[in-house]
Protein backbone atom coordinates (compact mmCIF):
# COMPACT_ATOMS: atom_id res chain seq x y z
CA UNK A 1 0.00 0.00 0.00
CA UNK A 2 1.23 3.43 -0.86
CA UNK A 3 1.41 6.10 1.79
CA UNK A 4 1.63 9.26 -0.18
CA UNK A 5 0.34 12.73 0.16
CA UNK A 6 -0.13 13.13 -3.55
CA UNK A 7 2.23 14.47 -6.16
CA UNK A 8 3.93 17.84 -6.15
CA UNK A 9 4.25 19.62 -9.49
CA UNK A 10 6.75 22.24 -10.57
CA UNK A 11 6.41 23.92 -13.94
CA UNK A 12 9.03 26.35 -15.19
CA UNK A 13 8.80 28.28 -18.44
CA UNK A 14 6.41 25.80 -20.03
CA UNK A 15 5.79 26.74 -23.63
CA UNK A 16 3.58 24.92 -26.07
CA UNK A 17 2.44 26.02 -29.48
CA UNK A 18 0.35 24.55 -32.24
CA UNK A 19 1.01 25.61 -35.84
CA UNK A 20 3.04 28.60 -34.66
CA UNK A 21 0.32 29.88 -32.33
CA UNK A 22 1.35 29.71 -28.67
CA UNK A 23 -1.29 28.07 -26.50
CA UNK A 24 0.76 28.11 -23.33
CA UNK A 25 3.24 30.94 -23.10
CA UNK A 26 6.18 30.45 -20.69
CA UNK A 27 4.05 29.39 -17.74
CA UNK A 28 5.41 28.98 -14.21
CA UNK A 29 3.30 27.07 -11.74
CA UNK A 30 3.79 25.14 -8.51
CA UNK A 31 1.28 22.72 -7.11
CA UNK A 32 1.83 21.43 -3.57
CA UNK A 33 1.38 17.74 -2.76
CA UNK A 34 -2.22 17.04 -1.80
CA UNK A 35 -3.45 20.39 -3.03
CA UNK A 36 -6.79 20.85 -4.75
CA UNK A 37 -6.12 23.35 -7.54
CA UNK A 38 -8.86 24.73 -9.77
CA UNK A 39 -7.97 26.34 -13.09
CA UNK A 40 -10.42 28.68 -14.78
CA UNK A 41 -10.02 30.85 -17.81
CA UNK A 42 -11.69 31.84 -21.06
CA UNK A 43 -11.98 29.37 -23.91
CA UNK A 44 -8.69 28.81 -25.68
CA UNK A 45 -6.51 29.78 -22.72
CA UNK A 46 -4.72 26.42 -22.88
CA UNK A 47 -6.39 24.77 -19.88
CA UNK A 48 -6.87 21.44 -21.63
CA UNK A 49 -3.40 21.55 -23.14
CA UNK A 50 -1.96 22.16 -19.69
CA UNK A 51 -3.75 19.10 -18.33
CA UNK A 52 -2.50 16.98 -21.21
CA UNK A 53 1.05 18.13 -20.48
CA UNK A 54 0.63 17.21 -16.82
CA UNK A 55 -0.67 13.78 -17.85
CA UNK A 56 2.32 13.29 -20.20
CA UNK A 57 -0.13 12.93 -23.08
CA UNK A 58 1.66 15.82 -24.74
CA UNK A 59 5.18 17.26 -24.62
CA UNK A 60 6.05 20.90 -24.02
CA UNK A 61 8.13 22.66 -26.68
CA UNK A 62 10.17 24.43 -24.00
CA UNK A 63 10.41 24.48 -20.25
CA UNK A 64 10.55 21.87 -17.54
CA UNK A 65 7.83 19.94 -15.83
CA UNK A 66 8.94 18.19 -12.64
CA UNK A 67 6.73 15.74 -10.89
CA UNK A 68 7.76 14.84 -7.35
CA UNK A 69 7.72 11.10 -8.00
CA UNK A 70 9.14 9.34 -11.01
CA UNK A 71 6.53 6.56 -11.25
CA UNK A 72 3.59 8.79 -10.61
CA UNK A 73 0.16 7.22 -10.82
CA UNK A 74 -1.98 9.65 -12.81
CA UNK A 75 -5.71 9.49 -13.49
CA UNK A 76 -7.68 11.60 -15.95
CA UNK A 77 -11.38 12.43 -16.05
CA UNK A 78 -12.65 13.83 -19.33
CA UNK A 79 -15.66 16.04 -19.95
CA UNK A 80 -17.31 13.06 -21.61
CA UNK A 81 -17.67 10.02 -19.31
CA UNK A 82 -15.89 7.88 -21.97
CA UNK A 83 -17.25 4.56 -20.76
CA UNK A 84 -16.97 1.46 -22.88
CA UNK A 85 -20.52 0.51 -23.90
CA UNK A 86 -19.66 -3.19 -24.15
CA UNK A 87 -18.49 -3.40 -20.55
CA UNK A 88 -20.69 -3.49 -17.47
CA UNK A 89 -20.34 -0.68 -14.93
CA UNK A 90 -18.16 -2.77 -12.63
CA UNK A 91 -15.86 -3.86 -15.48
CA UNK A 92 -15.56 -0.25 -16.64
CA UNK A 93 -14.48 0.82 -13.16
CA UNK A 94 -12.05 -2.10 -12.82
CA UNK A 95 -10.44 -1.43 -16.23
CA UNK A 96 -7.33 0.47 -15.03
CA UNK A 97 -6.53 -2.33 -12.56
CA UNK A 98 -7.10 -4.89 -15.29
CA UNK A 99 -4.58 -3.06 -17.49
CA UNK A 100 -2.09 -3.20 -14.62
CA UNK A 101 -2.55 -6.98 -14.48
CA UNK A 102 -4.40 -7.09 -11.16
CA UNK A 103 -6.30 -10.41 -11.01
CA UNK A 104 -10.09 -10.37 -11.20
CA UNK A 105 -10.73 -11.51 -7.62
CA UNK A 106 -8.77 -8.49 -6.37
CA UNK A 107 -9.99 -5.83 -8.75
CA UNK A 108 -13.72 -6.58 -8.58
CA UNK A 109 -14.05 -6.08 -4.79
CA UNK A 110 -12.06 -2.85 -5.09
CA UNK A 111 -14.38 -1.61 -7.82
CA UNK A 112 -17.44 -2.65 -5.80
CA UNK A 113 -16.27 -0.71 -2.78
CA UNK A 114 -15.58 2.41 -4.84
CA UNK A 115 -18.95 2.22 -6.60
CA UNK A 116 -20.61 2.13 -3.19
CA UNK A 117 -18.84 5.30 -2.11
CA UNK A 118 -20.17 7.14 -5.18
CA UNK A 119 -23.66 5.78 -4.48
CA UNK A 120 -23.81 3.29 -7.33
CA UNK A 121 -23.63 0.08 -5.30
CA UNK A 122 -26.61 -1.48 -7.05
CA UNK A 123 -25.73 -0.38 -10.59
CA UNK A 124 -22.59 -2.48 -10.98
CA UNK A 125 -24.21 -5.05 -13.29
CA UNK A 126 -25.75 -2.41 -15.53
CA UNK A 127 -24.38 -1.17 -18.82
CA UNK A 128 -23.46 2.46 -19.53
CA UNK A 129 -26.39 3.22 -21.84
CA UNK A 130 -28.79 2.27 -19.03
CA UNK A 131 -27.41 5.09 -16.87
CA UNK A 132 -28.19 8.80 -16.69
CA UNK A 133 -25.52 11.39 -17.49
CA UNK A 134 -24.76 12.01 -13.82
CA UNK A 135 -24.47 8.29 -13.07
CA UNK A 136 -22.10 7.80 -16.01
CA UNK A 137 -19.93 10.61 -14.68
CA UNK A 138 -19.84 8.97 -11.24
CA UNK A 139 -18.72 5.71 -12.89
CA UNK A 140 -16.04 7.69 -14.73
CA UNK A 141 -14.92 9.23 -11.44
CA UNK A 142 -14.79 5.81 -9.76
CA UNK A 143 -12.73 4.43 -12.64
CA UNK A 144 -10.23 7.27 -12.29
CA UNK A 145 -9.80 6.64 -8.57
CA UNK A 146 -9.57 2.83 -8.64
CA UNK A 147 -5.76 2.87 -8.87
CA UNK A 148 -5.55 5.31 -5.92
CA UNK A 149 -3.73 7.90 -8.05
CA UNK A 150 -1.24 10.44 -6.75
CA UNK A 151 -2.45 13.00 -9.25
CA UNK A 152 -6.03 13.38 -10.46
CA UNK A 153 -6.62 15.58 -13.50
CA UNK A 154 -10.15 16.63 -14.42
CA UNK A 155 -11.01 18.47 -17.64
CA UNK A 156 -14.37 20.19 -17.12
CA UNK A 157 -15.82 16.90 -15.92
CA UNK A 158 -19.30 18.05 -14.91
CA UNK A 159 -19.86 20.74 -17.54
CA UNK A 160 -22.57 18.82 -19.37
CA UNK A 161 -24.68 18.18 -16.28
CA UNK A 162 -27.54 20.11 -14.73
CA UNK A 163 -26.85 22.18 -11.59
CA UNK A 164 -28.31 19.77 -9.04
CA UNK A 165 -26.44 16.76 -10.42
CA UNK A 166 -23.34 18.89 -10.66
CA UNK A 167 -23.51 19.87 -7.00
CA UNK A 168 -23.91 16.21 -6.01
CA UNK A 169 -20.86 15.28 -8.06
CA UNK A 170 -18.87 18.15 -6.56
CA UNK A 171 -19.62 16.67 -3.14
CA UNK A 172 -18.64 13.17 -4.27
CA UNK A 173 -15.37 14.50 -5.63
CA UNK A 174 -14.69 16.45 -2.44
CA UNK A 175 -15.28 13.44 -0.17
CA UNK A 176 -13.15 11.19 -2.40
CA UNK A 177 -10.32 13.71 -2.20
CA UNK A 178 -10.69 14.02 1.57
CA UNK A 179 -10.67 10.22 2.06
CA UNK A 180 -7.69 9.61 -0.20
CA UNK A 181 -4.86 12.13 -0.17
CA UNK A 182 -3.98 13.11 -3.71
CA UNK A 183 -3.22 16.18 -5.73
CA UNK A 184 -6.14 17.37 -7.83
CA UNK A 185 -5.97 19.71 -10.80
CA UNK A 186 -9.49 20.62 -11.80
CA UNK A 187 -10.30 22.61 -14.93
CA UNK A 188 -13.73 24.18 -14.92
CA UNK A 189 -15.79 26.92 -16.50
CA UNK A 190 -17.77 27.43 -13.33
CA UNK A 191 -16.36 30.03 -10.93
CA UNK A 192 -18.57 28.91 -8.06
CA UNK A 193 -17.58 25.27 -8.57
CA UNK A 194 -13.92 26.30 -8.48
CA UNK A 195 -14.31 28.31 -5.29
CA UNK A 196 -16.46 25.61 -3.69
CA UNK A 197 -14.00 22.78 -4.24
CA UNK A 198 -10.51 24.16 -4.42
CA UNK A 199 -7.81 25.13 -1.92
CA UNK A 200 -6.52 27.47 -4.56
CA UNK A 201 -7.97 28.94 -7.72
CA UNK A 202 -5.91 30.25 -10.61
CA UNK A 203 -7.26 32.27 -13.49
CA UNK A 204 -5.44 31.92 -16.79
CA UNK A 205 -5.47 34.64 -19.42
CA UNK A 206 -6.53 34.08 -23.00
CA UNK A 207 -3.51 33.21 -25.08
CA UNK A 208 -2.14 31.25 -22.18
CA UNK A 209 0.70 31.56 -19.81
CA UNK A 210 -0.30 34.49 -17.68
CA UNK A 211 -1.83 33.71 -14.35
CA UNK A 212 -4.01 36.77 -13.80
CA UNK A 213 -5.13 35.63 -10.36
CA UNK A 214 -3.70 33.11 -7.93
CA UNK A 215 -6.13 32.94 -5.07
CA UNK A 216 -6.14 30.78 -1.95
CA UNK A 217 -9.63 29.95 -0.70
CA UNK A 218 -9.22 29.90 3.08
CA UNK A 219 -12.46 28.03 3.81
CA UNK A 220 -12.09 24.74 5.72
CA UNK A 221 -12.97 21.38 4.15
CA UNK A 222 -15.37 19.64 3.99
CA UNK A 223 -17.52 22.36 2.51
CA UNK A 224 -21.24 21.73 2.42
CA UNK A 225 -24.21 22.86 0.40
CA UNK A 226 -24.92 25.48 3.08
CA UNK A 227 -21.49 27.04 2.60
CA UNK A 228 -22.37 27.88 -1.01
CA UNK A 229 -24.65 30.57 0.42
CA UNK A 230 -22.45 31.73 3.28
CA UNK A 231 -21.16 35.30 3.27
CA UNK A 232 -17.43 34.37 3.22
CA UNK A 233 -18.01 32.03 0.26
CA UNK A 234 -19.79 34.76 -1.68
CA UNK A 235 -17.00 37.21 -0.85
CA UNK A 236 -14.38 34.82 -2.24
CA UNK A 237 -16.51 34.14 -5.28
CA UNK A 238 -16.83 37.88 -5.91
CA UNK A 239 -13.06 38.38 -5.75
CA UNK A 240 -12.38 35.59 -8.23
CA UNK A 241 -15.25 36.69 -10.40
CA UNK A 242 -14.00 40.28 -10.55
CA UNK A 243 -10.53 39.13 -11.53
CA UNK A 244 -11.99 36.91 -14.23
CA UNK A 245 -14.47 39.48 -15.56
CA UNK A 246 -11.99 42.33 -15.32
CA UNK A 247 -9.53 40.48 -17.41
CA UNK A 248 -12.15 39.41 -19.94
CA UNK A 249 -13.30 43.00 -20.23
CA UNK A 250 -9.82 44.32 -21.00
CA UNK A 251 -9.68 41.74 -23.79
CA UNK A 252 -13.06 42.72 -25.20
Amino acid sequence: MKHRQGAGLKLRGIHRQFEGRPVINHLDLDVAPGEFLAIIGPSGCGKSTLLRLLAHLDQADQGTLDRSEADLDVAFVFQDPCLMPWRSVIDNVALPLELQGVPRHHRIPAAEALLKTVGLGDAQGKFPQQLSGGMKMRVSLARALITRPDLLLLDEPFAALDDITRHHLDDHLQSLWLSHPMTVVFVTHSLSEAVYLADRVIVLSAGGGNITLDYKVPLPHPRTAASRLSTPFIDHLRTVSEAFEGHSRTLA
Partner: protein
Amino acid sequence: MKPLSGVLWLPPLMSFVLITGLIECSIILMDLPAYLAPRPSAVALALFIHAEELLKATRHTGIAAITGLGMSAILGALLAITLASHPLIRRAFYPYAVFFQTVPIIAIAPMLVIWFGYGQGAVVAASFIVSVSPIIANTLTGLLSTDPALLDLFRIAKASRLDTLFKLRIPGAIPHFLTGLRIASGLAVIGAIVGEFVADSYEDGGGIGTAVEIALKEQRTDLVFAAVLMSSLLGLLIFWLVSGLNQLSLKYWHLGEFKDS
Protein backbone atom coordinates in the same frame (compact mmCIF):
# COMPACT_ATOMS: atom_id res chain seq x y z
CA MET B 1 -49.17 1.21 -34.24
CA LYS B 2 -51.15 -1.86 -33.20
CA PRO B 3 -54.26 -1.38 -35.34
CA LEU B 4 -52.01 -1.01 -38.39
CA SER B 5 -49.98 -4.18 -37.91
CA GLY B 6 -52.86 -6.41 -39.11
CA VAL B 7 -52.88 -4.79 -42.53
CA LEU B 8 -49.13 -4.26 -42.83
CA TRP B 9 -48.78 -7.10 -45.33
CA LEU B 10 -51.67 -5.83 -47.42
CA PRO B 11 -50.02 -2.93 -49.35
CA PRO B 12 -47.06 -4.99 -50.63
CA LEU B 13 -49.41 -7.84 -51.55
CA MET B 14 -51.69 -5.48 -53.46
CA SER B 15 -48.80 -3.89 -55.33
CA PHE B 16 -47.47 -7.36 -56.14
CA VAL B 17 -50.81 -8.53 -57.55
CA LEU B 18 -51.19 -5.29 -59.48
CA ILE B 19 -47.72 -5.32 -61.03
CA THR B 20 -47.63 -9.01 -61.94
CA GLY B 21 -51.19 -8.74 -63.27
CA LEU B 22 -50.18 -5.77 -65.41
CA ILE B 23 -47.15 -7.62 -66.79
CA GLU B 24 -49.25 -10.71 -67.48
CA CYS B 25 -51.91 -8.71 -69.32
CA SER B 26 -49.46 -6.67 -71.39
CA ILE B 27 -47.54 -9.77 -72.48
CA ILE B 28 -50.82 -11.38 -73.59
CA LEU B 29 -52.08 -8.20 -75.28
CA MET B 30 -48.80 -7.55 -77.12
CA ASP B 31 -48.60 -11.21 -78.01
CA LEU B 32 -44.95 -11.45 -76.97
CA PRO B 33 -43.37 -14.87 -77.54
CA ALA B 34 -42.42 -16.81 -74.36
CA TYR B 35 -38.68 -16.88 -75.20
CA LEU B 36 -38.67 -13.06 -75.18
CA ALA B 37 -40.72 -12.43 -72.05
CA PRO B 38 -42.21 -15.20 -69.95
CA ARG B 39 -45.59 -14.56 -68.36
CA PRO B 40 -45.51 -14.33 -64.57
CA SER B 41 -47.94 -17.22 -64.41
CA ALA B 42 -45.51 -19.33 -66.46
CA VAL B 43 -42.69 -18.38 -64.09
CA ALA B 44 -44.84 -19.39 -61.13
CA LEU B 45 -45.66 -22.68 -62.82
CA ALA B 46 -41.99 -23.37 -63.59
CA LEU B 47 -41.15 -22.54 -59.99
CA PHE B 48 -43.72 -25.08 -58.88
CA ILE B 49 -42.87 -27.87 -61.35
CA HIS B 50 -39.10 -27.56 -60.92
CA ALA B 51 -39.24 -26.80 -57.22
CA GLU B 52 -37.08 -29.76 -56.25
CA GLU B 53 -34.22 -29.04 -58.70
CA LEU B 54 -34.38 -25.32 -57.98
CA LEU B 55 -34.20 -25.86 -54.24
CA LYS B 56 -31.27 -28.21 -54.71
CA ALA B 57 -29.50 -25.63 -56.89
CA THR B 58 -30.23 -22.89 -54.35
CA ARG B 59 -28.75 -25.01 -51.60
CA HIS B 60 -25.69 -25.67 -53.75
CA THR B 61 -25.17 -21.95 -54.37
CA GLY B 62 -26.06 -21.10 -50.80
CA ILE B 63 -23.32 -23.34 -49.41
CA ALA B 64 -20.75 -21.75 -51.72
CA ALA B 65 -21.92 -18.21 -50.88
CA ILE B 66 -21.92 -18.80 -47.13
CA THR B 67 -18.47 -20.41 -47.31
CA GLY B 68 -17.18 -17.46 -49.34
CA LEU B 69 -18.79 -15.01 -46.93
CA GLY B 70 -17.35 -16.83 -43.92
CA MET B 71 -13.86 -16.67 -45.44
CA SER B 72 -14.39 -12.98 -46.16
CA ALA B 73 -15.44 -12.38 -42.57
CA ILE B 74 -12.39 -14.11 -41.08
CA LEU B 75 -9.73 -13.05 -43.58
CA GLY B 76 -11.24 -9.57 -44.04
CA ALA B 77 -11.19 -8.92 -40.31
CA LEU B 78 -7.62 -10.20 -39.96
CA LEU B 79 -6.50 -8.09 -42.91
CA ALA B 80 -8.19 -5.02 -41.44
CA ILE B 81 -6.45 -5.58 -38.09
CA THR B 82 -3.10 -5.89 -39.90
CA LEU B 83 -3.76 -2.73 -41.89
CA ALA B 84 -4.82 -0.83 -38.78
CA SER B 85 -1.68 -1.78 -36.89
CA HIS B 86 0.57 0.84 -38.49
CA PRO B 87 0.18 3.75 -40.95
CA LEU B 88 3.14 2.45 -42.99
CA ILE B 89 1.56 -0.98 -43.40
CA ARG B 90 -1.65 0.76 -44.39
CA ARG B 91 0.09 2.88 -47.01
CA ALA B 92 1.95 -0.10 -48.39
CA PHE B 93 -0.85 -2.62 -48.55
CA TYR B 94 -4.23 -0.87 -48.63
CA PRO B 95 -4.10 -0.45 -52.43
CA TYR B 96 -4.06 -4.25 -52.72
CA ALA B 97 -7.15 -4.46 -50.54
CA VAL B 98 -8.88 -2.01 -52.86
CA PHE B 99 -7.93 -4.36 -55.71
CA PHE B 100 -10.55 -6.82 -54.45
CA GLN B 101 -13.18 -4.15 -54.85
CA THR B 102 -12.22 -3.11 -58.35
CA VAL B 103 -11.32 -6.45 -59.87
CA PRO B 104 -13.91 -7.35 -62.56
CA ILE B 105 -14.94 -10.74 -61.25
CA ILE B 106 -16.25 -11.88 -64.63
CA ALA B 107 -12.81 -11.31 -66.14
CA ILE B 108 -10.89 -13.07 -63.44
CA ALA B 109 -13.27 -16.03 -63.09
CA PRO B 110 -11.57 -18.05 -65.88
CA MET B 111 -8.29 -17.65 -63.99
CA LEU B 112 -9.99 -19.06 -60.91
CA VAL B 113 -10.81 -22.16 -62.96
CA ILE B 114 -7.15 -22.49 -63.87
CA TRP B 115 -6.13 -22.12 -60.24
CA PHE B 116 -8.84 -24.10 -58.50
CA GLY B 117 -10.26 -26.30 -61.27
CA TYR B 118 -13.95 -26.61 -62.10
CA GLY B 119 -16.17 -26.94 -59.06
CA GLN B 120 -16.96 -25.41 -55.70
CA GLY B 121 -13.37 -24.23 -55.04
CA ALA B 122 -13.45 -21.65 -57.82
CA VAL B 123 -17.05 -20.68 -56.98
CA VAL B 124 -16.17 -20.04 -53.33
CA ALA B 125 -13.12 -18.05 -54.44
CA ALA B 126 -15.28 -15.83 -56.66
CA SER B 127 -17.73 -15.31 -53.82
CA PHE B 128 -14.84 -14.42 -51.49
CA ILE B 129 -13.22 -11.93 -53.89
CA VAL B 130 -16.48 -10.05 -54.39
CA SER B 131 -17.51 -9.96 -50.73
CA VAL B 132 -14.24 -9.29 -48.88
CA SER B 133 -13.68 -5.60 -49.61
CA PRO B 134 -16.67 -4.11 -47.72
CA ILE B 135 -15.60 -6.14 -44.70
CA ILE B 136 -12.01 -4.86 -44.90
CA ALA B 137 -13.10 -1.27 -45.49
CA ASN B 138 -15.73 -1.16 -42.74
CA THR B 139 -13.67 -3.00 -40.13
CA LEU B 140 -10.70 -0.76 -40.85
CA THR B 141 -12.86 2.34 -40.41
CA GLY B 142 -14.07 0.94 -37.09
CA LEU B 143 -10.54 0.14 -35.91
CA LEU B 144 -9.32 3.63 -36.80
CA SER B 145 -12.25 5.55 -35.30
CA THR B 146 -11.65 4.56 -31.70
CA ASP B 147 -12.65 7.31 -29.26
CA PRO B 148 -9.44 9.38 -28.84
CA ALA B 149 -10.27 10.02 -25.17
CA LEU B 150 -10.39 6.28 -24.52
CA LEU B 151 -7.06 5.92 -26.32
CA ASP B 152 -5.67 8.62 -23.99
CA LEU B 153 -7.07 6.70 -21.05
CA PHE B 154 -5.22 3.58 -22.18
CA ARG B 155 -2.03 5.58 -22.66
CA ILE B 156 -2.26 7.05 -19.17
CA ALA B 157 -2.83 3.55 -17.78
CA LYS B 158 0.32 2.48 -19.70
CA ALA B 159 -1.64 -0.25 -21.48
CA SER B 160 0.25 -2.56 -23.82
CA ARG B 161 -0.40 -2.47 -27.57
CA LEU B 162 -2.10 -5.86 -27.34
CA ASP B 163 -4.40 -4.72 -24.55
CA THR B 164 -5.26 -1.60 -26.52
CA LEU B 165 -6.06 -3.76 -29.55
CA PHE B 166 -8.08 -6.48 -27.85
CA LYS B 167 -9.76 -4.48 -25.09
CA LEU B 168 -10.42 -1.25 -26.97
CA ARG B 169 -9.94 -1.18 -30.73
CA ILE B 170 -11.46 -4.54 -31.68
CA PRO B 171 -14.56 -4.41 -29.44
CA GLY B 172 -15.18 -0.86 -30.64
CA ALA B 173 -14.97 -1.98 -34.28
CA ILE B 174 -17.52 -4.81 -33.97
CA PRO B 175 -20.52 -2.72 -35.13
CA HIS B 176 -18.57 -1.55 -38.21
CA PHE B 177 -17.50 -5.11 -38.95
CA LEU B 178 -21.13 -6.27 -38.78
CA THR B 179 -22.23 -3.50 -41.14
CA GLY B 180 -19.56 -4.68 -43.58
CA LEU B 181 -20.77 -8.25 -43.19
CA ARG B 182 -24.33 -7.24 -44.08
CA ILE B 183 -23.21 -5.44 -47.23
CA ALA B 184 -21.02 -8.44 -48.09
CA SER B 185 -23.84 -10.95 -47.66
CA GLY B 186 -25.65 -9.87 -50.84
CA LEU B 187 -22.40 -9.63 -52.78
CA ALA B 188 -21.38 -13.16 -51.74
CA VAL B 189 -24.43 -14.62 -53.56
CA ILE B 190 -23.70 -12.57 -56.69
CA GLY B 191 -20.07 -13.71 -56.61
CA ALA B 192 -21.08 -17.35 -56.25
CA ILE B 193 -23.50 -17.19 -59.20
CA VAL B 194 -20.95 -15.46 -61.43
CA GLY B 195 -18.46 -18.13 -60.37
CA GLU B 196 -20.93 -20.83 -61.34
CA PHE B 197 -21.43 -19.34 -64.81
CA VAL B 198 -17.77 -19.90 -65.50
CA ALA B 199 -16.56 -22.59 -63.18
CA ASP B 200 -19.39 -24.93 -62.18
CA SER B 201 -18.57 -28.61 -62.57
CA TYR B 202 -22.24 -29.63 -62.94
CA GLU B 203 -21.50 -32.04 -60.15
CA ASP B 204 -24.60 -32.74 -58.08
CA GLY B 205 -26.77 -30.85 -60.60
CA GLY B 206 -24.91 -27.56 -60.06
CA GLY B 207 -26.09 -24.31 -58.56
CA ILE B 208 -28.40 -21.47 -59.58
CA GLY B 209 -25.87 -20.05 -62.03
CA THR B 210 -25.77 -23.40 -63.79
CA ALA B 211 -29.56 -23.68 -63.77
CA VAL B 212 -29.82 -20.24 -65.43
CA GLU B 213 -27.22 -21.19 -68.03
CA ILE B 214 -28.96 -24.46 -68.95
CA ALA B 215 -32.40 -22.86 -69.05
CA LEU B 216 -31.06 -20.09 -71.33
CA LYS B 217 -29.64 -22.65 -73.76
CA GLU B 218 -33.05 -24.31 -73.89
CA GLN B 219 -34.74 -20.90 -74.32
CA ARG B 220 -36.74 -21.66 -71.16
CA THR B 221 -37.02 -18.06 -70.02
CA ASP B 222 -39.71 -18.99 -67.48
CA LEU B 223 -37.13 -21.21 -65.79
CA VAL B 224 -34.48 -18.45 -66.02
CA PHE B 225 -36.75 -16.09 -64.13
CA ALA B 226 -37.68 -18.80 -61.64
CA ALA B 227 -33.96 -19.37 -60.95
CA VAL B 228 -33.28 -15.63 -60.68
CA LEU B 229 -36.14 -15.39 -58.19
CA MET B 230 -34.58 -18.19 -56.15
CA SER B 231 -31.21 -16.41 -56.13
CA SER B 232 -32.85 -13.22 -54.86
CA LEU B 233 -34.55 -15.22 -52.13
CA LEU B 234 -31.21 -16.80 -51.25
CA GLY B 235 -29.62 -13.37 -51.02
CA LEU B 236 -32.44 -12.21 -48.76
CA LEU B 237 -32.14 -15.31 -46.59
CA ILE B 238 -28.41 -14.79 -46.05
CA PHE B 239 -28.98 -11.09 -45.42
CA TRP B 240 -31.60 -11.94 -42.78
CA LEU B 241 -29.30 -14.49 -41.16
CA VAL B 242 -26.51 -11.92 -40.96
CA SER B 243 -28.90 -9.24 -39.67
CA GLY B 244 -30.09 -11.63 -36.98
CA LEU B 245 -26.49 -12.30 -36.03
CA ASN B 246 -25.95 -8.54 -36.06
CA GLN B 247 -28.80 -7.88 -33.63
CA LEU B 248 -27.68 -10.71 -31.36
CA SER B 249 -24.08 -9.54 -31.17
CA LEU B 250 -25.01 -5.89 -30.71
CA LYS B 251 -27.18 -6.99 -27.82
CA TYR B 252 -24.33 -9.08 -26.45
CA TRP B 253 -21.90 -6.18 -26.78
CA HIS B 254 -24.54 -3.77 -25.45
CA LEU B 255 -23.98 -1.41 -28.32
CA GLY B 256 -27.55 -0.20 -28.27
CA GLU B 257 -26.78 3.15 -29.82
CA PHE B 258 -25.44 1.55 -32.98
CA LYS B 259 -28.55 -0.55 -33.53
CA ASP B 260 -30.56 0.56 -36.50
CA SER B 261 -34.30 0.17 -36.36
